[in-house]
């Protein structure tokens, strides 16, 4: 019996009110005494089997090339793929985020007027669908214009493509908003670099070390009076890192 069912049955037994049969309301009388973590609030680490759930090898090659120009390896830290950002995004896209479970995806949609009104492109497609179509369009563009796989292009050329996307100037066809796709990739690669390592990215807490963020600590009372000081706190993750 999970927590929900437990609460439900507790409510049914404790109920002093007449509840018609078939009524599914969760009725609570008294404080629920269950102390176990709620199922849906348990941390959900990325799957660590080494396998990928949704992105194909070809998609990962294209995406990895883009991510590693957004966050390249340099003196400040590893590249996005070295930090696990592909594992991160694959896991995210395989779950509720990728399915757009929180989004309002009902039509009708009027892309032009919604863009004007909201100041940012609106979509009926889920993030996973947008990755699939976006990566395919970028790969097709590279093959058509450059005659090569996107992943095989020189770094400067990928930088130029990303710059064109950021400016909303890259034409990837009617179905793809290149500026919207750029913003999605940038947001997600930053997430992969800076989220808790349990989600597959930020390997060895490299992103946190880059900026000096101490991670999942929960008590800074010993430090608040130490003003303007480099505290050199060692970061911690919610789960043991690899």
């Amino acid at each position: 019996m999970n927590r929900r069912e437990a609460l439900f049955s507790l409510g049914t037994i404790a109920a002093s009110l007449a509840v018609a049969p078939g009524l599914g309301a969760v009725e609570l009388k008294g404080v629920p005494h269950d102390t176990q973590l709620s199922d849906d609030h348990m941390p959900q680490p990325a799957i660590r089997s080494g396998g990928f759930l949704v992105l194909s090898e070809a998609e990962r090659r294209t995406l990895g090339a883009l991510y590693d120009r957004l966050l390249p390896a340099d003196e400040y830290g590893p590249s996005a793929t070295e930090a696990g950002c592909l594992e991160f995004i694959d896991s995210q896209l395989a779950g509720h985020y990728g399915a757009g479970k929180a989004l309002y995806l009902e039509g009708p949609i009027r892309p032009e007027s919604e863009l004007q009104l909201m100041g940012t492109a609106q979509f009926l497609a889920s993030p996973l669908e947008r990755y699939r179509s976006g990566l395919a369009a970028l790969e097709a563009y590279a093959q058509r214009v450059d005659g090569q796989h996107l992943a095989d292009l020189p770094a400067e050329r990928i930088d130029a493509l990303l710059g064109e996307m950021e400016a909303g100037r890259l034409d990837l066809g009617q179905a793809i908003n290149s500026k919207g796709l750029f913003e999605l990739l940038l947001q997600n690669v930053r997430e992969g670099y800076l989220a808790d390592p349990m989600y597959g990215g930020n390997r060895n807490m490299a992103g946190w070390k880059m900026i000096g963020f101490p991670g999942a600590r929960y008590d800074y009372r010993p430090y608040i009076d130490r003003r303007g000081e480099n505290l050199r706190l060692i970061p911690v993750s919610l789960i043991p890192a690899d």
Partner: protein
Amino acid sequence: MSNVRKRADVVICGLGWAGSVMAEELTRAGLEVVAIERGAWRDTSTDFPPAVDPDELRWTTRRELLQPMSVETTTFRNRLDQQAAPVRNWSAFQYGWNVGGAGAHWAGMSWRFSPWDFEVATQTRERYGAAKMKGLQLQDWGVTYDEMAPYYDRFERIAGTSGIAGNINGQIHPGGNPFEGPRSREYPTPPLKDTHWMRTFRDASTRLGHHPFTIPAGNISQAFVNPLGVTMGPCTYCGFCDFHGCGNFSKSSPQACILPALMRRPNFTLLSETEVLHAVKHDDGKTVKGVKFITKEGVEGFQPADVVCITAYQMDNVRLMLLSRVGEQYDPRTGRGTVGRNYNYQTCSTVTGFFDDSYMNPFIGGGALAVQIDDFNGDNFDHSNLDFIGGAGIMGYSTNGRPIQNANTVRPGTKRWGSEWKKAYARDYQQSGGIFCQGTSMPVREAYLDLDPTYKDRHGQPLLRLTFDWNRNDTNMLDYVTERAVRIMKEAGGRDIIVDNQGEQSWNPYMQHSSHTIGGAVMGADPTTSAINPYLQSWDAHNLFVVGASAFPNNGGYNPTVTVGALAIRAARAIHETYFNNPGALVKG
């Protein structure tokens, strides 16, 4: 309808702050209360303990404590001649999605409104003349600060609010806010400590002759037992506060302050994961007889009650009134009707500065950890030669150092990706300080709420449609106070200053920082311009009370929660002390 429950004295629709404090008052008075909440039961130890809470991706970025748009969203347009579109993705709006409502994930800034905020129409007319009000739809609240003060005090005691008084019974106290309305006593717990940035801001604003003080916070500074016998713990400055629950029992919330006492009362019943669809009127249309609801399994039912309290979020309060067909829809063309009238927002700007070679240690934070000046808030300064009324609180804040959220806070002109961004963020994460101007918003005729003709929620009911853009009064105000904030930033030594003045472009929900929406079912003494009377009782159905920031006819330069809580306690007292003895209108219209 087959699923008819046993009658209750009062049904509460939405168990957030407003619903919780009302249920506490009403059950203590012996009334049988049923609360219906569409979110699930959430508690500190089971849902956001320290092993779960410090997770930025999950709670801040993915917003897992907030109501998803797929459950219900709002449609939006700037002007009447546009077609509204639904807000499809996360935006400025931050609706609660659990027992405890937004009270579980809020930041905790725990302000009283100023005496002026309740009487803007009268005070502006008296001090500056009626011409100053031109273009604004100003109206008094029908309640004064002095009448509100005992209820503010009660809410603060329940919440354990930390802070430092500036005005106790008319006596100005150094270190506090000298502009605040008089309080009867100190805050329940002392003020929080300063971070490095807060101290920098405090010193700079003092040098400029302003009056800085630590803001009142629902992040409490030491252990405290509230009047309901519930014990809270001290804030640890963890920096995972707004958008997050609190694992320390130190953020004021229904979970930490009320539910442990309320749930034990035998005359209280909670139906969670159950959504109120609308209130149902009696055949004569003069009162309501209860509410229709739907469970998460999709089964509809009916809860009869002598009194119905709508205590959802501001937007849903208005929507539930419209879906229940109580009162007349406001029409901005004619000015007729009251439901949907005086919708408004909060006029805000941010000023960011950078400090070479500094260590701000921004991860040391709290949702309500800030130093503020009120020298340019409300009517605390002379507006005779200014082209606006109102003002803003100007605060130096240390609310969080969450790395994904702050990734754009780098020196101006920096490329947003590549080694250039990595180099900049590696340096600027520690070197930025932020000032937030949180301003008043004045009502205008064209800003309003109604039901959308096209888009529906998951149950097929129409979404609420929002028609809003900034008005000239408020953008003039924002230009003025933002300039003051820039002066403070310069005095503090901040360089490479970035000004985000939100009034410079048309309003849209994705650009904003504030979640503070107000109005649409406003209180007042005149039934032709207000949907509810000064006790938040519907003018059109005397056993229906509509409680929340939906009641605010104008917005103060402060966060709304404590005013919502105080209004809720006042309404609940009126219900059990007066209404049940003699059901009918509490005020003559």
